[in-house]
């Protein structure tokens, strides 16, 4: 008995034979579709400024195929203090925000609830700010009203209320580097990172976003090997970010924060 692939192949063959009998020609539907497309394009050109603000946006959130669920969304307004402290949230959301942020929303998971899509901003290509109403950070521990940052691979969330004082700082590692990136409030022009035992590094802030790397890691910790591992019982753990202090500088180079690390 043929399997489903062959059965479907037979269906396609029959469809092609039916359509071949009509001959390759431009169908009225094609003409109508083209005309409709031209009309739609004209409407789009005329109404583009309005559409940029009102067009619905329905991106894929998280990995429903893996997580078996998807985070909910929320139309609730942003926390006032965070909006007041981040210019990037006071400007309108643009098509570029949506286009650049969309793939990064896949880092969300069902532990985030009430994703505030209207507040999503692309911070730079590859980084997005995502406000959410609630996120579970550990069993029985959650944050209400959080600002999350995503680089597509990782997601970090901080209480929105604390952003004016602490910003949102993300730490990650490559094989040889510690990466520090995040958002800082308006008025911070540069960010300096002073890693322990290494020279400080500085970077400029653009639209509340900063990102820098330092060629340093903490010495690798040793962790228990997985059950059944044939080698030693303790093996080198993953790279650990180097410790250090973050300083916020204003346009005159004065240290203006953060209020706490």
């Amino acid at each position, binding site marked *: 008995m043929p399997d489903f692939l062959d059965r479907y192949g037979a269906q396609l063959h029959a469809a092609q034979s*039916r359509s071949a009998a009509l001959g390759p020609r431009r169908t009225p539907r094609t003409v109508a579709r083209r005309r409709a497309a031209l009309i739609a394009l004209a409407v789009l050109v005329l109404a583009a400024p309005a559409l940029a603000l009102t067009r619905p946006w329905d991106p894929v959130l998280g990995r429903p195929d893996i997580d078996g669920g998807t985070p909910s969304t929320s139309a609730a307004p942003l926390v006032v203090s965070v909006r007041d402290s981040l210019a990037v949230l006071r400007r309108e959301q643009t098509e570029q925000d949506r286009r650049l942020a969309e793939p990064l929303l896949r880092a969300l998971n069902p532990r985030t609830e009430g994703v505030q899509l209207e507040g999503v901003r692309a911070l730079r290509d*590859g980084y997005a700010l995502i406000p959410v109403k609630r996120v579970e950070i550990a069993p029985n521990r959650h944050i209400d009203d959080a600002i999350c940052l995503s680089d597509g691979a990782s997601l970090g969330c901080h209480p929105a209320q604390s952003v004016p004082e602490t910003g949102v700082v993300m730490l990650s590692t490559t094989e040889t580097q510690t990466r520090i990136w995040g958002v800082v409030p308006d008025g911070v022009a540069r960010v300096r990172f002073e890693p322990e035992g290494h020279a400080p590094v500085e970077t400029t802030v653009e639209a509340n976003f900063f990102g820098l790397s330092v060629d340093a890691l903490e010495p690798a910790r040793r962790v228990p090997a997985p059950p059944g591992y044939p080698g030693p019982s303790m093996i080198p753990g993953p790279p650990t970010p180097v410790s250090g202090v973050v300083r916020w500088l204003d346009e005159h180079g004065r240290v203006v924060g953060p209020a706490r690390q």
Partner: protein
Amino acid sequence: MSGMTEPPDRELLSACRAGDPEAFGVFYVRHRQRILAYLARRVRQPEVAADLMAETFAAALVATRDRDAPVASAPLAWLFTIARNTLIDSRRRGRVEAEARKRLGLSPLVLDDQDLERVIEIAEATDILAGLPETLSAEEWEAVRRRVLDEEAYADIAGSLRCSEAVARKRVSRALAQLRTAIGAVHA
């Protein structure tokens, strides 16, 4: 039939447009397992993967029969693009689209347990990438495969390719641009 005598994909699609009733069938048989495997690894539900594969090939047939559209210059990459778009649309809408199948008057796929097992078998055994990277350098292909198919972060790609994140981004961007050029207009 030996590899030397098999007509290239583009010839098959051109023949299909010209009215050859067998051409699309050859194209379908050649690529059905690869597309099914790609989708099955993404959705992890065999029945959904089969449904998506069916809609992908139906959309490809509809597009091929559309005389206003150019025949894809890189048919396999074009087919993957249709599959990916079909998958994204289905996730957005919470169901697998059936518009192309409706247009062609095709019946829904009915799968039994044996069919579902076959989907899983194919997903595990098929090299979905064979034949796709012909238009790219090895480095570009590696970067775009990791980013688009494996959905790795740029930092991870840069780490394994031993280059900077900026270089990894450039390679992916250049490779995608080349694929887009090769793919041409996608009508799905």
